[in-house]
């Protein structure tokens, strides 16, 4: 048995050895195949890279030829709807290992050529593109740069295909470059017609004191227009209410008390050119009727709150926007360079929030009931235009980084071009897309809280990390996590919309500007197609500032030597004023002159009887102070013609005095009361001019109805109220929310002074349009 068994084992060792070796050989052969495949891939990677670099060089050379050869450039500019081809010969110094140009179309008929084509839109029109160029090259001298500007280009696509080796990779590269250098046209809007009647509300030129001790400003407010370096800080002291279509502060605004801004009109514009510090609560009441917006409205029509610098806010709550409990979801935009918002209570913004600083590190801290509300439930206009709002509002767009520590709800997108950190101490729901370079979800002070992405939206980022692992895992498991580039691929407007950058909507300030001429020369206007924000230079132009002359057009700083005067027989002629026209205390006709040594009193009624020309009243003398007695009333009939008041030297109104037009003068009741003022029907046709370096001083409880065009004269307030207006009906048909003791008013009309030197108590200003 044993012998038989052992015989069966003959050769088994050999067989085993051979089998094992065969298996080894099979494995090794497989390894060799894999290694060769990897080797081919690496070689293909090399040839593919090389082909790409060579193709790009061909495109670069072509681009350079369009700059250096006007005939080639013109040929490109005159491209029709079909593609054309250019020969590119790499020359004698060319190494064949770089590859060779082959037909971009693949047919072989255009080997050695690249393809050039003008891109067209769906309608067949050439596609052009505006670009902001911070340092354009001077075409006549490539070593120099021109001032920053907007440029419009034709979008040209150049395609090159290169193959490296006979069996190497073939790579096609195209580049859309912006041709048509002949249309490099700086966008400089023509100056608007210069007219002092462009006065709009309460305006100051210099670094005036604006230490409001409370009050109601039912008027546009423009402060510090002539400040070129914007170093002044405006500090309202007590609670104030504004009903302004324009609220423009050229410098820092530092509120010490509550500020309520009422937006009754979609034309509302709030601009703070530097930082905004709030030491008390800010309320922005967006009360306008959304249905009043024009048909097909765009971002240009949306009222806005613009802080060019940092918005510092550390209060119990912040409310900006319309009341979401009503059906009037009025669109509203909030622009800030950087946000520094910390609230123990809710942060509520019913609109879109744009954070414009590239290097800004914004922080928003709010309670669980914080909200960024959308302004509509659906978009009526989805035309795809970049300037139509890109979503339904309630979103955050940031150029810099953002740390969000609030809970609550964000009903729009959160789009951050930099990094985003969310440390939500309460659950947070985001109804739009969440986009950022890198997203960090950390557990907040109350531990990890839910971050819910709703409404079929997604998360786009390069990395998603942090200590809030539950939220991270939930997003990862949702299948809605994509790369940052994926979002860019499907959103041509960019993460932060290109048309909503500071340069696009506001312009670019010069690095320094020591005076207004330098400011005008250095300020780069935005593209008019994307401009939204009021800026300093356009407001200066609007009030007659001429940057070439360096002064205000139509401004009188001394007595005009020749004026149209009204004679006693009610005829008019051009007369030379010599300062001795007489003393007039009451009457009509001719020039009315109040010398400095004449102290007016009582009621003075002046009624120009002629129409169609100007009438002049001269008060005081240069270098002298004119003081009127208490309870002097100057009532001027401005219905027939414009009445000009020239104030020479300083002028002191007596206590409880007034300068009113006859319309308001007829409504005087009691000692210092006016029955009502109606902005819809009342106008004021009195112009006040002031000498250089002079002061217009108010006594206690005074009021003036006029348009003051006195950019070198200061208005001096007193710590008293003005006259009381029993009722004021603004153009929206509503009465303002009066603050202070009664309806105290110091000015009715419009004014442009150098500054408000000393604050009024409960300073109130009612806007009336200029005119008869």
């Amino acid at each position, binding site marked *: 048995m044993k012998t038989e068994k052992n015989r069966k084992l003959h050769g088994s060792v050999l067989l085993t050895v051979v089998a094992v070796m065969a298996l080894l050989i099979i494995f090794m052969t497989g390894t060799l195949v894999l290694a060769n495949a990897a080797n081919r891939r690496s070689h293909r990677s090399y040839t593919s890279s*090389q082909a790409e*670099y060579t193709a790009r060089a061909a495109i670069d050379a072509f681009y350079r030829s369009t700059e250096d050869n006007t005939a080639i450039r013109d040929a490109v500019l005159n491209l029709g709807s079909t593609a054309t081809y250019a020969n*590119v010969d790499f020359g004698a110094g060319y190494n064949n290992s770089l590859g060779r140009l082959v037909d971009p179309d693949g047919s072989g008929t255009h080997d050695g050529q690249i393809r050039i084509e003008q891109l067209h839109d769906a309608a067949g029109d050439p596609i052009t593109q505006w670009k902001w160029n911070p340092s354009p090259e001077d075409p006549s001298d490539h070593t120099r740069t021109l001032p920053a500007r907007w440029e419009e280009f034709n979008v040209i696509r150049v395609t090159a295909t290169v193959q490296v080796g006979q069996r190497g990779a073939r790579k096609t590269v195209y580049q859309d470059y912006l041709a048509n250098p002949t249309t490099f046209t700086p966008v400089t809007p023509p100056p608007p017609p210069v007219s002092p009647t462009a006065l709009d509300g309460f305006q100051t030129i210099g670094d005036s004191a604006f230490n409001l001790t409370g009050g109601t400003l039912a008027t546009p407010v423009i402060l510090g227009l002539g400040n070129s370096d914007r170093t002044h800080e405006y500090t309202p002291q007590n609670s104030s209410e504004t009903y302004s279509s324009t609220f423009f502060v050229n410098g820092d605004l530092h509120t010490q008390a509550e500020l309520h801004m009422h937006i009754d009109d979609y034309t509302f514009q709030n601009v703070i050119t530097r930082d905004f510090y709030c030491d008390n609560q800010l309320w922005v009441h967006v009360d306008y009727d959304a249905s009043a917006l024009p048909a097909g409205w765009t971002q240009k029509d949306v009222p806005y709150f613009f802080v060019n610098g940092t918005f510092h806010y550390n209060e119990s709550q912040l409310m900006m926007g319309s009341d979401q409990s009503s059906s009037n979801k009025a669109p509203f935009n909030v622009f800030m360079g950087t946000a520094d918002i910390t609230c123990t209570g809710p942060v509520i913004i019913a609109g879109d929030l744009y954070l414009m600083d590239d290097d800004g590190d914004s922080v928003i801290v709010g309670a669980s009931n914080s909200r960024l509300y959308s302004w509509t439930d659906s978009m009526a206009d989805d035309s795809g235009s970049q300037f139509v709002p890109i979503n339904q509002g309630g979103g955050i767009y940031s150029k810099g980084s953002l740390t969000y520590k609030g809970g609550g709800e964000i009903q729009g997108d959160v789009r951050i071009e930099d990094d985003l950190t969310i440390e939500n101490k309460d659950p947070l729901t985001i109804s739009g897309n969440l986009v950022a370079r890198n997203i960090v979800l950390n557990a907040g002070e109350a531990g990890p809280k839910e971050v819910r992405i709703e409404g079929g939206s997604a998360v786009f980022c390069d990395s998603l990390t942090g200590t809030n692992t539950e939220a991270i895992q939930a997003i990862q498991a949702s299948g809605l996590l994509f790369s940052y580039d994926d979002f860019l691929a499907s959103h041509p407007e960019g993460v932060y919309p290109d048309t909503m950058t500071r340069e696009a909507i506001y312009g670019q300030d010069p690095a320094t500007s020591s005076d207004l001429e330098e400011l005008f020369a250095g300020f780069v206007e935005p593209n008019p197609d994307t401009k939204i924000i009021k800026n300093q230079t356009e407001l200066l132009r609007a009030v007659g500032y001429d940057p070439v002359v360096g002064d205000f057009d139509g401004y009188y700083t001394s007595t005009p030597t020749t004026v149209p005067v009204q004679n006693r027989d009610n005829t008019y002629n051009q007369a030379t004023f010599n300062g001795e026209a007489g003393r007039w205390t009451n009457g009509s006709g001719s020039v009315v002159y109040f010398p400095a040594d004449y102290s007016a009193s009582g009621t003075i009624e002046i009624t120009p009887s002629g129409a169609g020309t100007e009438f002049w009243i001269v008060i005081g003398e240069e270098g002298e102070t004119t003081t009127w007695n208490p309870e002097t009333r100057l009532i001027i009939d401005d219905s027939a013609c414009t009445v000009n008041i020239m104030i020479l030297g300083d002028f002191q109104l007596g206590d409880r005095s007034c300068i009113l037009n006859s319309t308001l003068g007829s409504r005087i009741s009691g000692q210092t009361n006016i029955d009502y003022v109606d902005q819809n029907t009342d106008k004021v046709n009195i112009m006040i001019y002031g000498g250089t370096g002079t002061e217009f001083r108010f006594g206690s409880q005074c009021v003036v109805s006029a348009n003051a065009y006195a950019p070198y004269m200061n208005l001096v307030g007193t710590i008293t109220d003005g006259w009381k207006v029993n009722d004021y009906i603004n153009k929206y048909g509503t009465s303002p929310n009066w603050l202070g003791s009664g309806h105290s008013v110091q000015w009715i009309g419009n004014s442009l002074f150098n500054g408000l030197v000393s604050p009024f108590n409960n300073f109130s200003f009612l806007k009336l349009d200029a005119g008869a």
Partner: protein
Amino acid sequence: MKKKRTLKGMTLIEIIISMFILTVMAGLLLGIGLNVDETTKNTTGMKDKVSVEAPFAGDNRREYIDSAGNVQNLSPESNTVISVTLDGHTQGIDADVYNTADIYDDSVGERGLTDKQDDRDLRFIQVATAGP
């Protein structure tokens, strides 16, 4: 009881054949192994080469830091004039051809590349920036 010899060893012929087969197979294995080793080295070398050189060639960067920490500058391997012709109009564009081999050699060294592969360096063409 005499023990019967029942086990038989391999014959001499079997041993010779076995040795021959083992020798052939071992040779094959060795050859394949060496080939795999060389291919893997080449692959690694090419990957290294592309990964080191591509960022420079891709961005037309001529400044790099060598293994000693010194800043070095690439010199053009050759100069050429690229002729661009469109609609009968021709423009010559001065250009330099740069070889990024020095960057790889200075920072990594020639690891496992055959001579043929060592010649395969990424090159880029820098079009002159000066205008007319």
